[in-house]
């Protein structure tokens, strides 16, 4: 049954051997040293500040949706950095390896990356940016906001929430491990079959890619179940469907997508795993395999995934613009229908990823039309945002700057997307960097929305605003970098440059490639300003403390509770009266309507089991990558055992007496006592100033 593998294999270590450590590659050795130094610094700082206990008790074993959300966002930021470094390497390689006379360094004939290494880099860049940067960032933001926006204490299943987090973390860790042990896939982030099959990719790279993908997609499916059940079942009294905050609607639509499509990619990759491990013939060339089966299954997930990441981004933009236009969102119902419409149509467009794969003209025509149809609900959204701003009192605080710039990228990305949607035109630009530039516009729109959202909700979660001056510098440099990288990329696409070139044969493209490198340098500079922004924000946090409503004109329910949000979210479940509950209360002078009667609060206990499941998931995937069968069996057995043990546990929740809740609330209100460190994400060393409740 098991496929025979050429090369050494031992029962104890599987295919793992010392030769698999790439100690001869200076780039990877340098990365490794950087990682080691970073790890030593982090461990040192944690020990110096005596943070271990807090780290374990308040973070790693936490089931609090806000802390889980923050940890998701941290994973996303770390992986965003990793994916960005990959991008830097790709851009510099392409600029260096132009024409037959270009110099070669480090074993490469041209440039400094060998073709095999370059292929791994672009595969890692795509996989990381989609699955381990965009997805965790957005899932993290949804995790933090959805329960707050609907007036719930936590998610429907706090324990499952932690399991999702640690499965995603395990996937991210596996991608990182592939840097230093073995190698990574080299057949593109979406996998090209039959290149991904064992005869053509006999190494462990594809296995790393496949199992990391699986871990995170299982985590995201479980997260989707959790968010959907939360939105359906945990709404506060009065929170009818017509009053649901628009970001929550966007999350609902997005998670309908993740629930229905992530299982498909799980199957697509499981069948690839069967091919690679058991010698079946799902996607093989010959013996009855079908290459297109993989493409169809993958993109049936792949395109909806794009909308899975873009819908929460739209949701954030829809929350930010009304706040800074000081008007209710224009066309709320239209927005809701458009979100659900985008989620629905996402299921019918996947074939546009391979218009050139010889489908019948009628098939291509069908998918051309469905793809263009995506523009209708998206257009509705853009006009709704425009009409929200129309005659509003616009303030361009940082969140608004990011959100309005996001609209610009939506326009550029959307219109170039329409160009690609014509199947006839797609034959011209298929696989060119024009397409690459197009989808980077769309993904940058998501990045802009994320930065906007982080700036907007940061004070809600941490209790102080992010610094604005460095923040603006970061915004403008980031935007300049984007323009300088991607305008030449669109141009090169029109000139016929295909994607994924480790060597560029046409010297006349050199100037444009050099401009792209300039853009990348601007990006690197902008990152320095981001670090400065975060540092100054943290240093001056006492001056930037905010009350419940951080921006003065916020509208939805999450702004009626304290900033930073206490671990129980709302001392007493709020009664919802309007679509924009915060504005409704504000307009009636009810801002300070504090509860009179408090209640006992039931909260889930912290638990280390999700962390254990994540670690075992990593162990199982690592064992499968290296075909260490005993370890795989051991980890599988331990996973089942942990699940059963958890089922027999009692006392998984605890009660905070009403008296204690009242005391904590009064302390906060007086601003005299510091909120206990454990009560707020990230700790809260200074008293709460400003607007009361």
């Amino acid at each position, binding site marked *: 049954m098991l496929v025979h593998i050429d090369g050494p294999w031992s029962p104890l270590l599987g295919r793992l051997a010392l030769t698999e450590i790439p100690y001869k590659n200076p780039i990877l050795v340098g990365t490794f040293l950087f990682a080691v130094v970073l790890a030593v610094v982090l461990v040192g700082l944690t020990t110096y500040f005596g943070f271990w206990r807090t780290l374990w008790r308040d973070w790693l074993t936490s089931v609090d949706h806000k802390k889980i959300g923050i940890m998701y966002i941290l994973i996303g930021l770390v992986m965003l950095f990793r994916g960005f470094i990959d991008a830097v390497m790709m851009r510099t390689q392409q600029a260096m390896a132009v024409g037959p006379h270009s110099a070669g360094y480090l074993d490469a004939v041209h440039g400094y990356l060998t073709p095999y290494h370059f292929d791994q880099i672009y595969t890692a860049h795509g996989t990381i940016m989609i699955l381990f940067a965009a997805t965790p960032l957005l899932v993290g933001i949804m995790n933090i906001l959805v329960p707050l926006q609907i007036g719930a204490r936590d998610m429907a299943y706090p324990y499952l929430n932690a399991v999702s987090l640690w499965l995603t973390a395990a996937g991210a860790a596996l991608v990182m491990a592939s840097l230093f042990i073995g190698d990574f896939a080299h057949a593109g982030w979406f996998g090209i079959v039959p290149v991904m099959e064992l005869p053509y990719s006999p190494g462990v790279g594809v296995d790393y890619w496949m199992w990391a993908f699986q871990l995170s997609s299982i985590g995201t499916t479980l997260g989707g*179940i959790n968010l959907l059940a939360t939105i359906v079942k945990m709404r506060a009294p009065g929170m009818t469907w017509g009053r649901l905050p628009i970001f929550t609607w966007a999350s609902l639509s997005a998670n309908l997508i993740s629930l229905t499509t992530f299982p498909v990619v799980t199957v697509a990759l499981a069948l690839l795993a069967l091919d690679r491990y058991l010698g079946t013939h799902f996607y093989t060339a010959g013996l009855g*395999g079908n290459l297109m089966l993989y493409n169809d299954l993958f993109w049936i997930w792949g395109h909806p995934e794009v909308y899975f990441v873009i819908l929460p981004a739209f949701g954030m933009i829809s929350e930010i613009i009304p706040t800074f236009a000081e008007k209710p969102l224009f066309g709320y119902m239209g927005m809701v229908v458009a979100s659900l419409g985008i989620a629905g149509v996402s299921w019918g467009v996947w074939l546009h990823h391979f218009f050139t794969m010889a489908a019948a003209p009628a098939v291509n025509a069908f998918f051309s039309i469905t793809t263009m149809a995506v523009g209708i609900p998206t257009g509705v959204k853009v006009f709704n945002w425009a009409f929200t701003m129309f005659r509003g009192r616009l303030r361009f605080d940082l969140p608004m700057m990011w959100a309005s710039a996001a609209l610009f990228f939506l326009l550029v990305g959307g219109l170039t997307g329409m160009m690609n949607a014509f199947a006839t035109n797609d034959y011209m630009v298929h696989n060119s960097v024009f397409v690459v530039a197009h989808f980077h516009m769309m993904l940058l729109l998501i990045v802009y929305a994320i930065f906007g959202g982080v700036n907007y909700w940061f004070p809600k979660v941490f209790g102080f605003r992010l610094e604005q001056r460095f923040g603006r510098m970061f915004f403008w440099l980031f935007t300049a970098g984007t323009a300088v990288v991607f305008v030449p990329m669109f141009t090169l696409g029109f000139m016929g440059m295909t994607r994924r070139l480790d060597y560029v044969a046409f010297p006349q493209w050199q100037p444009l490639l050099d401009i792209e490198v300039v853009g990348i340098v601007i990006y690197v500079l902008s990152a320095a300003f981001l670090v400065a922004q975060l540092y100054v924000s943290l240093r001056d946090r006492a001056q930037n403390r905010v009350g419940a409503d951080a921006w003065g004109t916020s509208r939805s329910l999450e702004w009626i509770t304290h900033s930073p949000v206490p671990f129980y979210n709302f001392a007493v479940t*709020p009664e919802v009266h309007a679509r924009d509950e915060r504005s409704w209360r504000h307009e009636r002078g009810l801002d300070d309507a504090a509860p009179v009667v408090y209640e006992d609060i039931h909260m889930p206990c912290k638990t280390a089991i999700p962390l254990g499941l994540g670690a075992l998931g990593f162990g199982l995937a690592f064992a499968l990558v290296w075909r260490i069968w005993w370890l795989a069996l051991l980890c599988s057995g331990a996973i089942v055992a942990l699940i059963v043990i958890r089922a027999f546990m009692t006392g998984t929740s605890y009660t905070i007496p009403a008296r204690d809740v009242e005391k904590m609330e009064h302390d906060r209100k007086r601003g005299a006592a510091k909120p206990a460190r454990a009560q707020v994400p990230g700790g809260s060393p200074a008293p709460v100033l400003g607007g009361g409740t």
Partner: protein
Amino acid sequence: MKGAAGETAGGLGPVMWRPNHGYDDVSTKTLGFWLYMLSDAMMFTALFAAYAVLGHAMNAAGGPLPGTVAHPTHAFTETLWLFSSVLAYGGAMIALKKGNRVGVMAGIAVALLVALGFLGSDLHEVTRLFAAGATPERSGYLSAFFALVFYHGLHVIVGVAWMLVMLGQVAVFGLSEAVVYRLLNLRLFWHFQAVMWVFMFTFVYLRGAII
């Protein structure tokens, strides 16, 4: 009565807070289980799609076609095993309604044993096919066929393991709320895999009778 009047601003305005607002825990967990089943149904859908795509003569690569591997008569025997198990689990649910702890355990035990009968029957068929040289490595068609058979079989194995755990839980905790929602979700799961078997029977085994 807590709440209402005491929670207003100034005593006259609208109700602002709702103390002791509870959620129905069992129905929340049941909804989550329905959502899980939706995702699992998508996995089956993808496998059925793969089976349809790889179900052509070309995909048999000169090996056996559905007519020689998918026997509706044998599958009918398996169906009887499986549905009897679902029926026995239904008996456990009736006992649950009456609060009869012993009846619940007896029903689950019977369902478990009959499910083992199904697994035995399944295993027998698979070994027979393997012995005849019809293995998953033989062709794309057989890969898809066995993927479906084993994926459904995996559900039955998970169900059996779950039943074992529930026997333990009922014995240890009695019919507590946590045990009851798990029993209800297991009922959903057991019906779910039976429904998937109906699709297997229709699209895989009955199709085998005509191709």
